[in-house]
C-alpha cells in the first residue's frame, strides 16, 4: 500500500473564472448583435419563439444561457440553468477545451470537429448558433485574433464592421 494514494480532483478556479467572464460577455454580446446585425437577427428569426440555448462547460459549468423571448428578441438569460427549459445544450467537454475556445486558439467550428463539444438538441439549431458565435466574434475581436477564432473571416463593408462593432460594444457593456 506504500505506493497507493487517493487524490481528490481539485479545481481550476482561475480558468473557470476566466471562462465565466467570457461567457457572460459573449452572452450579452449575442443579445446586442441580434439587435444590430441583420444576419444574426435572421438566424434568431428562424428559431421557434421561446427557444433557449445554453453553452456550458462539463461537468459543472460555467454556463451561458441565451433565449428568444415571446416578442422575438434575443435575450441573455444569465449563467444559472436552474429552472430554465433548455432546448439546445452545447456542452464543452472540459475546462481546458473551453480555454482553447475562449482564448481563440480554436474556432467553435474547429473545436466541434475535434470532438471538444457535444450537442444535446437539434443539430440545425446548433449550426445556427455556431454561425451566430462566429459573427459575434468578428464584431468583438480585432481581425488578427478573430481570424483564429472563426471558420472564415468575412469581408464586411466598413459600415457593418466598424459602426456595428461600436454599437455592439456599447449595447453589451450597458446590457441593452
Amino acid at each position, binding site marked *: *500500500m*506504500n*505506493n*497507493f494514494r487517493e*487524490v*481528490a*480532483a481539485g479545481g481550476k478556479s482561475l480558468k473557470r473564472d476566466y471562462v465565466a467572464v467570457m461567457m457572460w460577455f459573449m452572452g450579452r454580446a449575442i443579445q446586442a448583435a441580434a439587435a444590430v446585425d441583420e444576419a444574426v437577427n435572421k438566424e434568431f428569426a428562424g428559431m421557434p419563439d421561446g427557444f433557449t440555448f445554453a453553452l456550458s462547460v462539463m461537468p459543472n459549468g460555467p454556463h451561458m444561457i441565451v433565449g428568444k423571448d415571446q416578442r422575438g428578441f434575443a435575450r441573455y438569460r444569465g449563467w444559472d440553468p436552474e429552472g430554465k427549459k433548455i432546448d439546445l445544450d452545447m456542452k464543452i*467537454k472540459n475546462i*481546458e477545451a473551453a480555454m482553447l475556445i475562449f482564448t481563440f486558439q480554436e474556432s467553435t467550428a474547429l473545436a466541434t470537429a475535434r470532438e471538444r463539444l457535444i450537442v444535446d438538441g437539434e443539430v440545425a439549431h446548433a449550426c445556427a448558433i455556431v454561425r451566430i458565435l462566429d459573427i459575434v466574434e468578428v464584431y468583438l475581436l480585432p481581425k488578427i485574433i478573430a481570424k483564429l477564432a472563426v471558420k472564415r473571416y468575412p469581408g464586411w463593408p466598413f459600415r457593418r464592421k466598424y459602426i456595428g462593432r461600436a454599437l455592439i460594444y456599447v449595447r453589451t457593456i450597458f446590457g441593452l
Partner: protein
Amino acid sequence: MRLQMYFPERYEFFCPVKINSGNRALEQIPFELDALNARKPLAIAGKDAGETGLIDVILGAFRDSGIAVGVFDGVPVAPDLKLIRELFNIYRDRGYDAIIAVGSGDVADTAKVLNIAVSGKPEDIEGCAGEDLIRNPLKPLIIVPTLSGTGYEMSRYASFDGRDYASHFLMPNLAVIDLRMTVPEDAVTTAAASLAALTHAVEAYTGSGKNPAVDAYAYASIQLIMEHVAHVIGDQHDGGGRLSLANAHAMAGCAFSNVAPGTAHKLGQVIGDLCHLPPGLCMGMLLPHVLKREMSEGGYHISDLLLPLGGFDAYASTAADLRARKAIDILYDLLRDMSAASGGAIFHLWKDAQVSEATLQKIAQKAVGAGASSDIEGCMKILRDAREGR
C-alpha cells in the same frame, strides 16, 4: 491505372479501441469515463512515473472534473501475482470501477490481468490464461501509452508472470495519446518501440490475414513511422513526430490484434529473451530478411508494401516485378538511417550481441516451437543473414 485493393474471400476484423489523441487529450478522460459508465478510476503506473512527472500530468487532467482518482505508482519490472492480489484488494475495497494504465509494457500487462481479476474472480487469472478463454467483457480499461509503448498494449495480448493471454476482451476501451505523455526516451528505446510497431504493421499488411480493415490501420502506421522515426531518434524534442509515432504504435497494435503474429515478431521475441536485447530491435533487424525469404517463396503482397513504405512516387516509378525488392531495400535504408540518427547505437547493440552459431540453432528451434516457421533451416538462414547483415 487504379490500384487494386486486396479483398479476401472471408475475413473478420474487431477493434473496440477508441483512440483519443492530440492536444489536451488527457482532459477528455473524465468525459470518456462517464460514457463508459465509470465514476471512480484506479490509475496504475510504473515506479518511475512519479519521478518523471507523468502521474502529476494525469492528475492535472482530472482537476475540475469532480472525480477522485486512486493512484498506484509502484508497478515494478517483471511484476508478479502478489502485486495483482494487492491491487485487487485496493480496487475492491475502495470501490473502483475502471482502470487507467499509465504507461506501456509491464504496466499495461498488469492492468489487463488486474482487469481479468476484478471483472470476475481472482482465480480467473489462472483459468483465463491461453487463447480466447475470457468469456465476458471486462471492466472499462483506459491505456495512456508512453513513447516506449510498442502498440502491444492496445492488442488482444498480455503476458504476465509466465502466463500468456489472448482475447479481444483484453483490448482497452480507450487509448489516450497525449504529447505530454510521450516524453523523450533514449534512442534505442524509441527505435525498439517503433521497429516492433513497424514489424507488426508490415506483417499484418503482407501476411495471409490481410484484409481491407487491417490494411487501413497498418498502412497508416507504416506511413507515420516512415515519416517520423529517424527524425525523432535524432531529435527527441520533435513533439509532433513523437505524437505521430505514438499514434502509429497504437494503430499497429490494433492491426496486430487481427492477424496471426508473423515470423519476424516471433523470432524477435525469442532472440530478445535469449540474448537480452530489446525484442522490438530484434524484430526490426530481422524484418527485411524475413520479407526477403518470403519474397523468394512467392510471399504475400510484399510488392504492395512499397506504397506505404516509399510513397506514391516510388511505387509509380518502380516496375511491378521490382516493387517487392525495392520495398525491402527501403527497410534496409531505414535501419541505416535510424542507426545513423542514434549515433550508431542501434547497429552496435545488435552486432555486440555476437550471437554464436549454437545460440542461433537454439533460437531457431525455439522459434519453430513457437510457430514462427515449420522450417529450422529457413529460420537459420534468416538469422545468419541478419547477423552478418547480408
